[in-house]
């Protein structure tokens, strides 16, 4: 069965902190994605990765970076958290052979 896990369901951080959100998939998928979801704005793509050490900016990359050192793991990094980064963050993965994405449970991040 398909499984995407995220390291935390709920996270509270302070402005200026460095924040790491971790995502792990067990399907040997090449592609992985980070989205944020906000009321009224839907899902917006932050970054995605074609394969290990490969990354590409999505629609809203400002204030974020990513790391993909191993195929199964894709990390989202907030270098200096700000209150406008309070959001639900969703990770997804996908085989390069199809266009079906499988999502993790999400991390609800609050920045105070």
């Amino acid at each position, binding site marked *: 069965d398909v499984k*995407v896990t995220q390291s935390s*369901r709920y996270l509270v951080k302070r402005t200026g902190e460095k924040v790491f959100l971790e995502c792990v998939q067990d399907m040997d998928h090449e*592609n992985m*994605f980070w989205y944020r979801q906000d009321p*009224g704005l*839907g*899902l917006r*793509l932050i970054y*995605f990765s*074609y394969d290990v050490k490969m990354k*590409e900016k*999505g629609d809203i990359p400002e204030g974020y970076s990513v790391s993909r050192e191993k195929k199964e793991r894709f990390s989202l990094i907030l270098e200096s958290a700000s209150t406008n980064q309070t959001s639900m963050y*969703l990770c*997804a993965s*996908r085989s*390069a*052979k*199809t*266009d*079906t*994405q*499988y*999502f*993790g*449970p*999400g991390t*609800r991040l609050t920045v105070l």
Partner: protein
Amino acid sequence: AQSVTQLDSHVSVSEGTPVLLRCNYSSSYSPSLFWYVQHPNKGLQLLLKYTSAATLVKGINGFEAEFKKSETSFHLTKPSAHMSDAAEYFCVVSAASGSARQLTFGSGTQLTVLP
């Protein structure tokens, strides 16, 4: 370019009555289309997908959707709503297989099921 329009931001039905969630799309390519469901504080779960095979697609939990190219629609239906169907539903279009940048999400439809 591609886009997805979910025509209703909120739909309310009584338990046991039919569900219709409407989605229109535009795409320059032959699209793949998906419906995802999101229960409160959960991730997105794939309900069904259309990828140029049969135009009537059956998904999980009794949902189905019909791809109508002439109307550029992909509406989601279920004959009889259940309380557990209350959730937010997203229509998604993908322009071309393997193209990571071409996935576009609709703004979502919140389904309420009344007892």
